[in-house]
């Protein structure tokens, strides 16, 4: 199978050799999970059981101290004046 489209969706670039290997493994994995298609059951059987609730909290601004700010800034690979630096997106 051709996995180029999936790689694009997954935001991954693979080397040539790696691509051949993953292509083979990936089709094995797909065959494995396709086992689910053989199961026949009524959807009614499993619906209407789960209650879902939303949990909200106030969206409050939390002030960080200098140490915390420093720790956060240190995580950023490329930054300038406390801002993230990225490639042009437009």
């Amino acid at each position, binding site marked *: 199978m051709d996995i180029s489209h999936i790689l694009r969706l997954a935001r991954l670039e693979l080397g040539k050799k790696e691509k051949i290997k993953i292509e083979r493994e990936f089709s094995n994995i797909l065959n494995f999970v396709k086992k689910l298609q053989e199961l026949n059951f009524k959807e009614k059987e499993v619906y209407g059981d789960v209650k879902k609730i939303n949990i909200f909290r106030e969206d409050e601004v939390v002030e960080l101290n200098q140490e915390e700010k420093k720790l956060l800034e240190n995580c*950023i690979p490329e930054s300038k004046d406390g801002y993230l630096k990225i490639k042009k997106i437009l």
Partner: protein
Amino acid sequence: MTIIELREKLKNREISSLEITKNYLEKIKKEDKKIHSFLDVYKEDAIEMAKRADKILEQNSSPHPLCGIPCVVKDNILIKGHIATAGSKILENYIAPYDATVIKRLKEAGVVFLGKTNLDEFAMGSSTENSAFGPTRNPNDLNRVPGGSSGGSAAAVRADFCVFALGSDTGGSIRQPASFCGVVGLKPTYGSVSRYGLIAMASSLDVIGPITKTVDDAKIVFEAIRGRDPMDSTSFDFVSPKNIKKIKDLKIAILKEGTSEDVDQFLKESILKLKEDLKDRVLIIDIVSIPSLKYALPTYYIIMASEASTNLARFDGIRYGKSVSSKECLDIFNFYIKTRGRFLGPEVKRRIMLGAYSLSAGYYDEFYSRACLIQKKIILDFKRLFSKFDLLLLPTSPSPPFKLGEKVDDPIQMYLSDIFTVPVNLAQLPAISIPFAKKDDLPFGLQIVGPKYSEDKIFNFARFIMNSKHLFEFGE
């Protein structure tokens, strides 16, 4: 040493937290070279924490039960100011800017952190061979894997490099390594322990839990880390049901699929023998089948991979982690795919791909939606079972620990080693793995599963089995 033993010694001033911490650091330095359970050892910080704990122990007449107790932490849980790699190259230099809630709670209790332990990259794997920093070896047999993904934590407890450890469990990552190393591992009810500060794999399945030497120790750690946290909306305040049944009043189910021909012959016989031995000690013991479990593994792989592909989208090389030089990239898309392609490992890539595929237009209904439906069916089947029984017994893993390299080139074979643990995560239930049988010095774990919030019932029964070892002679 166990938590309870050390606590007694600390209380009676037979030993100080500083002394025991130094002992452990010395032992790790000498003996971890051959096991490689650690990714980072806190040589100086641990000493400071131990000194602080000794002060509290001196001044406070009723300190927290974990005060001064040295532990280790799986490297996907954040400790402020320390590196957290999640076993991945992409986070090799990432320094955690805050404490995970479980760490905050343990710090308040006065726990001493000895360091961070090895794991499969982003907790994806069953052998710790997927770590970007090399595999961990099983202390019982250095040619074998310790299980995974919390393999470093389980190996460190087994090798006595610490008193207890924290791990995380998405599809068996606490229980399976506990089984392989011959220690106790608890996967708590989903949401009972906050996930804030745990590097996410599949958010609807992930849970943090203890790896310990005894059941009582697992209970102490669980009680210290559980409870509602505003930073994790799925967390809740845990209330233990009152009136825990006595052993003789328990209705026990043994999973039929857990004694099938796919299970190691010796393990299968041990479980059937346990059934005989328990016959007169519990109210009811019966073999039951859950046919939908045969679909649990593929269901799990679709749901877990879908959530993982979404969660791991954050590793884009921009806000944290490693990245390729932006100079070698034409545009931002190119920057993403190169960064992720270079710094993520093969199993992580496979799972991100499976997730992206399962969620993509044209395949969503056939894969993701269908998997969610089957998950609901599995939840219902467990509910039905627990309306008739108190607890379910089954193997933690179908086999004893396998050899390094044995399954690493065959992803499907590796996935199959989690066949008995993933259904529990899909149903959000609590389960414990305890050392149960032994053959040729290789341990087998027994898994005890209960309905949601039944941790205390599980602890009681697990303690009974471990204390009654003389009743059950399984090749030891």
